[in-house]
């Protein structure tokens, strides 16, 4: 036997972004904290060790910020010129930075003066990194060279002169102490092995390379340059896996989420995009106020820090989930759920299973027992009206289908009828709700016409409604005028062009018109 069928709530396509797990995840950040730096923020790097401080390189200073601090907890400012690429060592104890004057400096986090200074580059050093064994530093400079330095001796170990243009980005492998990758403005990304004196792999990116990134496994390499992000399979000898073109300006920075499932890219077009690393589709995108130069994610994606060209550092913290836990709700004990379900059938027992009770919404429960006015009251509650107007409209439609809408609307006092009228005023002009609500409005006018003038509040609402309808009529008239003008334009176009254009265009236009016109019958009623 068929049970009660719940009211079908009409679903409407949500305009704009689709709600997915990713959008929910990436939206779950607080409003950004903006920190003004002295110049363009060229690099943000998180310490891999707790408390996950981050180093911000801007102009000739390096600021170290704590997790929630708005002010730097430490500043390294002993640079003669612009500093570049302040990077933490894996243990979070040391920090290395390049600079415009070609000196690579190594700092202790607790100290102030540099521990080491590696001098050898003749031009600005834009990229430095620690190798996996923690005892070497790789640097790339505008003098086209890549150098490997030994920290204990502060000596240069190796120099690779294979790039033919500025080396602007680099990255050391997290697994192999001898491997590192550099990207250059000569459009190539090269992988070097410290055990040989030549590059072991070279891939052609096609644009000046702005950023390179090695996956934690070391198997995949991501390079960005120009508008492209390219993913290379290192294990297949540098085969191009996928090429992404989702930004419309140069992609300047790359970053992996902590799970390794998502890739983030920041670009001069002021957007950060999030890609899935399985399908390489964009799953989410953030907007910023200025062109993005640097981007970093903290441990467990707790914080997103973005540095921009105008010197603003934007810090977003993830919303804490403690809010939900703060509401201790008494749940039924486990045994209530398994009650009777764990009974083992004995011989000669006949099991009678009670059919699972279907959960019904409150309005459905009311409708099931024909409490129509109550059902309507439920969906006119402010919570429902604001959050889910489509539920309210669906219930009104259902009442109309059952032929009891007039009964449900009748016999309401001032407060209740005001509530209905408020809802109508709010939603009447929406094309998707119009056909149902116009009918409801007609019924209300029919019912309450004899008592009009008794309540100033309700009268005011009726006048607002009237104004709304008049506005809608004007709007319709304007639309029709526009349509007429466009028809004329199309008519002149057909004379010039071939026939098929005219064939297709009129088919689209009447639809727009039709979605709006259902308002008109009500207008006629209202004016009479």
């Amino acid at each position, binding site marked *: 036997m*068929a049970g009660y069928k719940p009211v079908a709530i009409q679903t409407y396509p949500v305009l704009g972004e689709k709600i997915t797990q990713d959008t929910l995840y990436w939206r779950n950040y607080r409003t950004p904290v903006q920190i003004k730096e002295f110049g363009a923020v060229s690099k943000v790097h998180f310490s891999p060790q707790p408390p996950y401080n981050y180093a911000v390189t801007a102009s000739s200073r390096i600021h170290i910020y704590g997790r929630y601090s708005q002010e730097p907890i430490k500043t390294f400012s002993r640079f003669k010129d612009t500093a570049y690429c302040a990077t933490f060592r894996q243990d979070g104890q040391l920090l290395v930075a390049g600079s415009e004057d070609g000196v690579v400096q190594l700092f202790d986090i607790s100290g102030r003066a540099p521990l080491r200074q590696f001098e050898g580059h003749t031009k600005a050093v834009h990229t430095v990194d620690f190798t996996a064994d923690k005892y070497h530093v790789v640097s790339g400079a505008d003098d086209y060279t890549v150098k490997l330095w030994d920290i204990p001796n502060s000596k240069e170990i190796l120099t690779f002169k294979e790039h033919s243009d500025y080396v602007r980005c680099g990255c050391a492998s997290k697994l192999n102490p001898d491997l590192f990758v550099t990207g250059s403005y000569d459009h190539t990304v090269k992988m070097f092995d410290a055990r040989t004196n030549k590059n072991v792999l070279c891939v052609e990116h096609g644009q000046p390379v702005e950023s390179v990134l090695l996956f934690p496994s070391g198997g995949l390499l991501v390079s960005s340059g120009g508008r492209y992000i390219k993913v290379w399979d290192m294990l297949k000898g540098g085969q191009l896996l996928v090429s992404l073109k989702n930004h419309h300006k140069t992609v300047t920075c790359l970053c992996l989420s902590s799970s390794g499932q998502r890739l983030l890219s920041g670009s001069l077009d002021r957007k950060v995009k999030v890609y899935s690393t399985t399908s390489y589709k964009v799953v989410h995108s953030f907007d910023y106020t200025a062109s993005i130069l640097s981007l970093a994610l903290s441990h467990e994606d707790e914080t997103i820090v973005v540095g921009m060209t105008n010197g603003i550092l934007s810090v977003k913290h993830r919303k804490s989930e403690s809010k939900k836990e703060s509401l201790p709700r008494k749940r039924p004990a486990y045994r209530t759920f398994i009650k009777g379900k764990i009974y083992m059938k004995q011989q000669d027992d006949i099991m009678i299973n009670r059919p699972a009770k279907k959960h019904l919404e409150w309005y459905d429960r009311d409708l099931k027992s024909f409490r129509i006015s109550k059902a309507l009251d439920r969906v006119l509650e402010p919570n429902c009206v604001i959050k889910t107007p489509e539920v309210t409209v669906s219930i009104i439609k259902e009442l109309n289908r059952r032929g009891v809408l007039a009964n449900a609307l009748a016999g309401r006092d001032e407060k209740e009828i005001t509530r209905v009228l408020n809802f109508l005023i709010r939603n009447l002009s929406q094309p998707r709700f119009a056909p149902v609500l116009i009918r409801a409005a007609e019924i209300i006018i029919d019912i309450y016409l004899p008592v009009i003038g008794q309540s100033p509040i309700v009268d005011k609402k009726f006048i607002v409604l009237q104004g709304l309808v008049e506005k809608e009529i004007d709007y319709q008239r304007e639309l029709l005028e526009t349509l007429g003008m466009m028809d004329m334009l199309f008519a002149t176009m057909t004379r010039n062009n071939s026939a098929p254009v005219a064939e297709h265009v009129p088919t689209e236009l009447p639809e727009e018109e039709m979605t709006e016109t259902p308002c008109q019958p009500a207008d006629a009623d209202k004016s009479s």
Partner: protein
Amino acid sequence: MVEERVRVVRCGGSRLNFRRAVFSADSKYIFCVSGDFIKVYSSTTEECVHVLHGHKNLVSGILLNPNNHLQLYSCSFDGTIKLWDYLDGILIKTFTVGPKLHALYIPPNAEDSVFLTILKEDPDVFQLVSVKLPKSSSQNVEARERTFVLDYVNRSPKCIDFGNEGEYIAAVRDFYLSVYFLKKKKTCNFTLPSTKNKKNAKNRFTCVACHPNEDCIASGHMDGKIRLWRNFHDEKQYTYTCLHWHHDLVMDLAFTVSGSSLLSGGRECVLVEWRDGAEKNKEFLPRLGSTIEHISVSPAGDLFCTSHSDNKITVIQRNLDARAVIQGLVKDRSISTGLMVDPKTKALVLNGKPGHLQFYSLQSDKQLYNLDIIQQEYINDDGLIQIELKKAAFSHSGTWLATVEQRQENPSELEMQMKLWVFSKKTQGFSLNTKIAMPHDDHITALCFNNAENYERPMLVTASRDGHFKVWVLADDSDIYKKAIGWTCDFVGSYHKYQATNCCFSEDSSLLAVSFEEIVTVWDSETWELKCTFCQRAGKIRHLCFGRLTCSKYLLGTTENAILCCWNLLSCSLQWSAKLNVSVLEADPYSDHVAAVSQSAAGSDLFVFKPSEPRPLYVQRTISREEVQWGVFVPRDVPESFTSEAHQWLNRSQFYFLTQSQCLLTFSTKSPEEKLTPTSKQLLAEESLPTTPFSLLLGKHRRQQDTRSSETSENELVQLPLTENIPAINELLHTPAHVLPSASFLCSLFVSSLLLSKETESAEELPDVDMEENKESDDSDEENDLTEKAQETHNTDLRDDVIHQLSKREEKELRKFRKVDYSWLAAL
């Protein structure tokens, strides 16, 4: 092979809810009328156990024989009363009364008389008469002697009931309740005091029921009230109480066997149980699907059943739990979807219950299942505008189903939804895939899928009165989170703002024909270019269809001005045209034949032709007096092999059509008897037990055992006389005991039949047989009990003895006896 004349045959789908269903005494079976037949259903498994056929016209009443509860009386419009043995499906007696019989009543204490409602005078005056059924041994008995009982009765059997062991008859008509006391031969008439103004009074009587053991009459009224009448022996001192729950008319009333509660039902689709005749003690069984037309109670009191307007019988337990549903073809609404064939199940598909699509098996005359399309609570009320299922179409392989539903309150407000359903292999049913709100701005006039084999790209075309046709394609809707497919609009076409009226794909789906009022346009389905147009200036196009197989280059169209046109798509010209007012045009998907049903004043005619030539291959005049609304070709399971040109069209498919009065008819060359024999034979062979899944399983197991044993015995080269194989014994065992003569008379016959079958074998072999048998039972089954074995051997010993004792003369006598035995049994 001799080819017989093709005749129109009524096929299934008769009304099960025409009269009250009747329970057997043990509540195992339910009997209900079904057109000219009576159907015996098992009340547990919903299976049809027997079909009792013999009446020549609609059966109008059935009742158990109060003197023998294994027999059933039935009366029919053909003027006869028949007595049946329902366990075996045998007709026992026929009483010919004469006039059309509208209802049958048998009071519990009446020995041999029955009460019948017959027409007294035209147009609408009926009387209740009693007929004495003469006792006679012959099968056909004349019972023309009628005694008049009551005049001016309502012809509906619900309006007369017998009360308190047949002491009085309660009959209602319009505003009167008449109680006729059989012993005193006195009639009391009662009327409600508030019925002075008869024109506006709403408390007209609709049905009546008498309390089984008290002097109490319950009557149902138009205004939804139930009145309980007492003290009606006196026209002055009568009293009544009122029970009111129904808001619409009370369709039927029934007291339970003990009389403790009263059941009522009506249009609300709710069965109400009134306990102790009190208004506050009531129980409900809601959402029974559609209007309750009849309620009946089993004599044992453990079951109720309700007959519904959607041709359904619901079996309900005493605690108001629905237990089983017997569903026939739903026909009480206008068929707007037309007839379709589900390619997967080969079932006939049409709209049935409100908002549902029914899948109906033509072979078993049974509804397979209902697909809920609208999925909304059904409120059955007068004057409500319901959402209606308007169109439906299956894709070529049956994987996709498209449905269109709409609700139109007034001309400017149209709610419409198109739904696309996908057949899921896992659940073996359709599940909703895409829902499109307002696919068009106006009514959808036609809907069709492309019929190519390429499953990757199914395509749906909808034509609408808004002047557009839209092409919908299946698109990939999956992202990284889920895999999904959905339908989207691919192309919108129009032709000079004319209304699109029909659409049709060619056989290979390369061309789409869409008719715009008078003009037929042909589009390339790859590029959606307009290829050519045809216009005959002969009124709006009514049907459009492409030829199949060898005739696939032809396009057929019929117009409102009664012209049938055939266009050649290669030359883009009119091939031929004929003057024919076609109401149904259907192409057989498995051959190149096309059936057209034309409409004329005399009735409907069928023309079968090939599009390649204007000459019809087969013509049958007046297949039906009324207008034929829909037709469809249903593929046959086993192709026939007619060779003559006129009959070839019946080889691969069968043409079914639905007339205006909702009769489902078809064409067949077989006579109705021939058509029925296989099924009835099969039914007789079955045991009279209800077929449960368990019994089916067990039956299979038994059959396997049988075959195994027969195999082994074949290996032994000796066929043993199993008792099951002797028809006489079989018949003896399966005929109910009450129709058999005394055991003493049968005993000798029984023994003799055993003996004679044995006697055919030579006497020398007998000892061998014994040995073989012993051996076999030793070897084969270890499970066999030792005692059983002993018995068997003992039996054979006995037989041996008997054989030795029989003389030649005695044998002859026994043989004679056996012959007698057979003829006697056959006469039953």
